[in-house]
């Protein structure tokens, strides 16, 4: 029943073929059509701006106080694009292959190929907007290599690539706001999807400043609401990142794909106390010169500089001699967890490993290291108070990116007609593990190039629909349900703040549905989440009412996480193999490497909501590899 609508024909012709045959809406009809875009990150801003430029009427919202603050702003490293400026043999096919392999052969060939195909145009678009990418002295654009691929295809803007790309998209968006084609609603949170006769027709949102509920109707609704890694509480995401919009859509019928596949990034700052609310990412580029180690002895209380070479275990170099400290993210994170769990962790909470620059400083000199990483060393010192030129950094893995998300077809449409999901909110391109610098790309390509071509194919049949009536009973029903849910939360008046439940849930997920999973652990987690949900509805405490109230905002998000977390565990439990970020302890080689099972598990899991306290229903989208042959991903 799942139809991915992949166009016929050879891989390299599919997208061109699609665009040549998709339906169009004539420019005279576009202003009769309203599109709602939830989210102003790279995916949402770029789509809303592009649709506005084409002449559609767009409503666009975000929960931050300005569109420019969406969490895309925090991406540091860079954005991949296949330009072959370095003449190092990069091609669309090579980029496609790297991404499929990096995703451990669990993504759709046609989508990934299109991602690589559209990548070059993104750089052109961003440069035209004035995005100040790094340049060579010749005046031409500069590239670096990123995340273990053999070519240099990463474009970057100092350590602020996401910020600069987002400002480009935000400015394009503001231009459309000024032109009157986009109406922008910051500090508005989507709390439900409205479905009429099986089609997405609008949303219910809450004005977070006044508490008022509003109805917005549209001929199509787009969710570009980013990742939900904040479900783990401690993560590299922003405080407000959430899964609520896609979860509400899921409960209205949109299937949720691969929910448990979360990238846990190896180089983050460790937790220093339980007051902590977020973990800061340190750029992966540090692993180019830093060496990762822990002491060989369990109870070694010496300061790192006093531990002599023979007493150090450079475990990545030991286990993965070919890639060493540059092993991919999933592998590096898992190896760190293995050492920490075995009792070799360092730091006051014994929850970290060392990232040591002493050899690089000795060999290259401090000025060279300062030139490469000066800003990161300063940031480290600001946060921890420690000088990393003198002492190794302490790092630990943290939840970072959701490969899973709403299931979408080739057109980025979910299983609800007229509802689309873009950017990190969908599951489409990264398989079981995302390659560094590919997700800024995906968010941009989805928003600038793909959705503006696929949404009209749907809207072409909506020209005669007329304005969406927001007094329709379906709007009234959704609004009443939202109001009641908020009131229920406020009325509980128990003893514990929302954060308490969020922290507990996060700890359960890290432990049982994080870097390493097992059948017993996952079943245990499902039970724990059930009882945590019961406690939440008995013991939650929100002071104040349903007007401006940040505790209510948090509680609403946690309520959704308590359901989504359970689905993640079901997802991990049914996948009896290890692939990418999903490592099931039962499925490993004798030396502890992931054991993928292509015969039984070469599919995408797409989950259907069955009701609260009911087991979700699994649908499978088979992954047909027509062009590549899945191989074992080895980094030894």
């Amino acid at each position, binding site marked *: 029943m799942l139809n991915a609508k992949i166009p016929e024909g050879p891989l390299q012709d599919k997208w061109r073929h699609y665009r040549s045959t998709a339906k169009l809406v004539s420019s005279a009809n576009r202003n009769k059509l309203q599109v709602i875009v939830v989210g102003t990150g790279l995916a949402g801003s770029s789509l809303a701006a592009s649709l506005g430029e084409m002449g559609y009427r767009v409503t666009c919202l975000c929960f931050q106080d300005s569109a420019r603050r969406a969490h895309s702003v925090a991406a540091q490293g860079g954005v991949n694009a296949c330009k072959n400026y370095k003449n190092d043999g990069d091609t669309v096919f090579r980029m496609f292959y790297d991404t499929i392999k990096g995703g451990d052969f669990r993504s759709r060939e046609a989508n990934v190929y299109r991602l690589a195909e559209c990548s070059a145009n993104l750089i052109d678009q961003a440069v035209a907007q004035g995005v*100040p990418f790094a340049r060579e002295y010749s005046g031409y654009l500069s590239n670096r290599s990123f995340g273990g691929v053999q070519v240099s295809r990463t474009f970057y803007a100092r350590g602020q690539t996401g910020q600069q790309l987002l400002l480009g998209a935000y400015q394009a968006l503001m231009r459309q706001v000024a032109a009157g084609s986009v109406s922008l609603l910051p500090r508005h949170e989507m709390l439900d999807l409205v479905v009429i006769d099986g089609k997405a027709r609008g949303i219910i949102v809450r004005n977070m400043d006044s508490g008022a509920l509003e109805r917005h109707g549209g001929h199509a609704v787009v969710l570009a609401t980013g990742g939900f890694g904040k479900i783990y509480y401690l993560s590299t995401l922003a405080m407000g990142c959430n899964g609520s919009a896609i979860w509400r859509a899921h409960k209205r019928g949109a299937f949720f794909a691969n929910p448990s596949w979360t990238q846990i990034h190896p180089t983050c700052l460790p937790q220093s106390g339980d007051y902590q609310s977020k973990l800061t990412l340190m750029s992966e580029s540090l692993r180019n010169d830093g060496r990762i180690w822990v002491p060989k002895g369990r109870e070694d209380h010496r300061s790192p500089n006093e531990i002599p070479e023979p007493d150090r275990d450079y475990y990545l170099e030991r286990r993965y001699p070919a890639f060493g400290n540059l092993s991919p993210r999933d592998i590096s994170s898992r190896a760190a967890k293995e050492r920490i769990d075995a009792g070799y962790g360092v730091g006051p909470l014994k929850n970290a490993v060392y990232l040591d620059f002493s050899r690089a400083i000795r060999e290259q000199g401090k000025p060279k290291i300062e030139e490469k990483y000066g800003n990161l060393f300063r940031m480290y010192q600001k946060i*921890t108070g420690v000088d990393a030129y003198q002492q190794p950094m302490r790092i630990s893995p943290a939840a970072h990116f959701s490969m899973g998300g709403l299931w979408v077809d080739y057109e980025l449409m979910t299983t609800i007609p007229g509802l689309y999901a873009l950017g990190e909110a969908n599951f489409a391109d990264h398989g079981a593990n995302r390659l560094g610098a590919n997700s800024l790309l995906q968010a941009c390509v989805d928003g600038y190039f793909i959705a503006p071509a696929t949404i009209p194919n749907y809207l072409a049949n909506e020209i005669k629909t007329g304005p969406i009536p927001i007094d329709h009973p379906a709007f009234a029903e959704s609004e009443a349900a939202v109001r009641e849910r908020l009131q229920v939360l406020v009325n509980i008046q128990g003893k514990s703040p929302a954060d308490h439940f969020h922290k507990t849930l996060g700890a359960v997920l890290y432990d049982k549905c994080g870097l390493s999973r097992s059948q017993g652990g996952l079943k245990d987690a499902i039970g724990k989440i059930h009882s945590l949900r019961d406690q939440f509805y008995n013991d939650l405490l929100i002071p104040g009412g349903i007007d401006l109230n940040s505790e209510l905002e948090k509680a609403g998000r946690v309520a959704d996480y308590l359901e989504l977390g359970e689905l993640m565990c079901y997802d991990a439990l049914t996948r009896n193999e290890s692939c990418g970020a999903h490592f099931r302890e039962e499925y490993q080689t004798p030396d502890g490497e992931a054991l993928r099972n292509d015969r039984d598990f070469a599919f995408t899991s797409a989950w259907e909501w069955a009701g609260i306290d009911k087991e979700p229903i699994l649908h499978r989208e088979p992954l047909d590899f027509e062009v590549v042959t899945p191989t074992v991903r080895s980094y030894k």
Partner: protein
Amino acid sequence: MRIQLKIWRQQNRSKSGQLVNYDLPDVNPDMSFLEMLDTLNERLVRQRERPVEFDHDCREGICGQCGMMINGRAHGPLSNTTTCQLHMRAFRDGDTIYVEPFRATAFPVKCDLKVDRSAFDRIIQAGGYTSASTGGAPEANSIPIAHDVAEAAFDAAACIGCGACVATCKNSSAALFTAAKITHLALLPQGKIEGRQRVRRMVRQMDSEGFGHCSNTEACQVECPQQISVLHIARMNWEYNRSLAM
């Protein structure tokens, strides 16, 4: 460490506000300033009191959403640092800390420490973009840009839109914010084409939002977390005068 807080509490735009005292007997110096406020809020919630509302999101110094006056300084005692990157080790045991919202006519207080900075969005809306619609862009390397020009444009483009420059300025001027965007685009060939209209429109919008005039005290660049230089203001003025002359 023990910290006394005096925090501005104001329920909404129309009510008046006041400083309220809070005593935190056990603050960990490794906490960030916002984590210290989180801890206070957790206590307030448990006592069924309304927590202190403040803006924040990324907590890594890049989104520009956090910002408050701490002991009279925008973003607190450290220069060029956002509030979320400030840690309690910057204070001493026994300190009393005054925490107030950014104050400016153009930034009305919404609730406690939250202010409305949408005037900044409207300044960008007035012209802080290139009119490059999706699809029409030429090959990226067809427009070479000298390395130092690109770097200088970046220095200006780095603004995070936090509003500290306005809050710290005795005239509540938005000159640093506006000038940063004007310089970013004026330096690049892509941005030059619309340069003349841009500077006029953005400056007109800035004035109509109720921001004050720049009187060159240079206080803004001391607090600016992105170290945006006041030299950009000089460039904005130059671009503005040139646009009138042309």
